[in-house]
């Protein structure tokens, strides 16, 4: 028996039972479409989270004061005062895996320009901060080391702050704005970075010399954090270890004492968040996989009924010289044809649904080639697997028993 014959017979059987075949396919279509869509959504959000986190500086390392736990109570990090300018100097001197480093002291408050005001945060930093956070100045200049040395009242503002303080979008350079009533001269405007995945606006930011924020706004000498960038993403983890050792030594901590500071790398965060979204993807795909399984059982059901209904046909085919294997292949072809057709339609529907999700809900999606290959493979295997048993049953019949079947 030829492959072409098998195909023709299967096509004919399906044509004679269009509705039944379609209903069976529906299970497979829904299964495959949901696998593809879910994977696209999962992969898309993973990719977008990764992109945004690395946009913040994939090799960024943050040092914060305070231990993770103290007497079982998590301390408010900014309230500890264990991070100082000496730490910054020590790190600068000793750390080999660090390129740029900047202190950071933040203050929240009201920025005012004439009649416009805007609640925002001011970040006290050094010029290297730009490189660490991967920010760029679009207009004007960044604060320089002289500004830091003299605690100059100059600021570089982000796009959101700019738009809210300069409603007419006039040139802000050289203008004076007030932050918590203290006047600062705007010397630069940052390029836009947009929102993070978590909806945090990265443009709602004012940069000033850290000395100015310490003296004129907060009146402290401590640092709230130190941000640094590792030489590369690969050494980020090693850089964390290096910094930890340097700080433990300079803080003179014995082996038993806990760190009185916290260091984490952006890389770590990416890994954590990616693994969370990975888990979500697995969950989504598992649900979709179950619907594929249900679709497969549908195929088995229909094939089982089909074999029963056509027992006399099986008998006749055998009487005319059909071998068991011919009968087996005939029903198997039918099952595989149903599942493959369903699979192809499912892939099309899945791609369409992904497009809709991307357009209408504006979700990040990412269709991967492997998701299509996998769904297709699963479909075919489902067809063979669930078609096998009924087909085998038909093939094992005796010609005369099958012919007499009622």
């Amino acid at each position, binding site marked *: 028996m030829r492959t072409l014959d098998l195909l023709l017979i299967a096509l004919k059987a399906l044509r*004679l039972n269009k509705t039944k075949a379609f209903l069976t396919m529906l299970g497979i279509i829904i299964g495959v479409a949901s696998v593809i869509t879910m994977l696209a959504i999962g992969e898309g959000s993973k990719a977008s989270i990764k992109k945004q986190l690395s946009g913040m500086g994939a090799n960024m390392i943050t040092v914060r004061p305070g231990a993770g736990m103290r007497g079982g109570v998590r301390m408010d990090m900014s309230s500890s005062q264990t991070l100082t300018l000496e730490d910054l100097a020590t790190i600068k001197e000793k750390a080999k895996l660090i390129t740029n480093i900047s202190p950071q002291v933040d203050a929240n408050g009201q920025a005012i320009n004439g009649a416009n005001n805007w609640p925002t945060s001011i970040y006290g930093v050094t010029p290297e901060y730009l490189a660490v956070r991967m920010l760029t100045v679009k207009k004007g200049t960044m604060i320089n080391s002289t500004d830091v040395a003299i605690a100059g009242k100059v600021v570089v503002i982000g796009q959101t702050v700019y738009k809210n303080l300069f409603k007419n979008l006039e040139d802000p350079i050289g203008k004076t704005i007030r932050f918590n009533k203290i006047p600062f001269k705007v010397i630069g405007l940052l390029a836009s970075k947009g929102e993070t995945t978590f909806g945090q606006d990265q443009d709602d930011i004012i940069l000033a010399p850290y000395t100015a924020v310490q003296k004129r706004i907060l009146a402290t000498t401590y640092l709230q954090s130190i941000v640094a960038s590792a030489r590369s993403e690969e050494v980020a983890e090693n850089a964390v270890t290096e910094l930890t050792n340097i700080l433990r030594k300079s803080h003179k901590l014995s082996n038993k004492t806990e760190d009185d500071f916290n260091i984490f790398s952006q890389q770590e965060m990416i890994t954590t968040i990616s693994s969370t979204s990975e888990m979500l993807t697995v969950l989504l795909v598992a649900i979709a996989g179950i619907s594929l399984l249900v679709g497969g059982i549908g195929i088995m059901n229909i094939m089982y009924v089909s074999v029963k209904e056509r027992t006399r046909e099986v008998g006749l085919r055998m009487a005319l010289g059909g071998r068991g294997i011919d009968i087996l292949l005939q029903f198997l072809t039918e099952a595989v044809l149903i599942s493959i057709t369903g699979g192809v339609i499912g892939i099309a529907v899945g791609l369409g649904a992904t497009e809709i999700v991307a357009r209408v809900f504006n979700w990040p999606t990412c269709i991967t080639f492997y998701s299509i290959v996998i769904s297709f493979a699963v479909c075919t295997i489902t067809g063979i697997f669930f078609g096998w048993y009924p087909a085998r049953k038909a093939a094992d019949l005796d010609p005369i028993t099958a012919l007499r079947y009622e």
Partner: protein
Amino acid sequence: MEKSIIHIENLKRDFIMGEETVHALKGISFSIQKGEFVTIMGTSGSGKSTLLNILGCLDRASSGLYEIDQVPVKNLSRNELAKIRNEKIGFIFQSYNLLPRTTALENVELSLVYNKAVPFRERKIRAAEALKSVGLETRMHHTPNQLSGGQQQRVAIARSLVNDPVLILSDEATGNLDTRTSYEIMALFQDLNSKGKTIAFVTHEPDIARFSKRTILLKDGHIIRDTPVENPGNAAQALKLLPKEE
């Protein structure tokens, strides 16, 4: 020495139905030589179909010997039996057994689908020829429910002939036909027989049996008579003698 195409010895077929056992064939022996034209007769329930199914390798005997072309059927695998059914035997069923919703042509082609020796392109031609030989050239694309009983029977006959088998087994092929068509079929069989085909033919009607060369009479699973037909009739001539159709 003549070669027997069929040789059976003490063939029995029991149907076990729960407690009861039906002895359909109770020990039958005979041989059919190449080129014979045999009628198997007997009352309803005497075991004619049971015997023919076994001869056609559709069913297996409970005990006894069955040799086809000197090969004991017992020793053949399922696949070898399928090959014999396809290439050597043309079987005409008592109840036509045509595929529903399938044209006459496709029904006849069915036998060729399982024959590797026939190329794909040749199938339609051969199937059409077979249908023509039973006078159905105008009904090739009709499905069984668009055909009369007799026409369906003739499609079944065409199907049994299409693979050019050496042995034709027919279970009441003329059972549903009028006298004229029956004679036509018998003329066809006689023609095939004269060309060397071996035919075993089940019928109720002695009028039909007289066209064959030998009659085996069954009763209650036994052979009660096995005699040659004296002066077999000529179906083609008998056909001419029939009164003209009005």
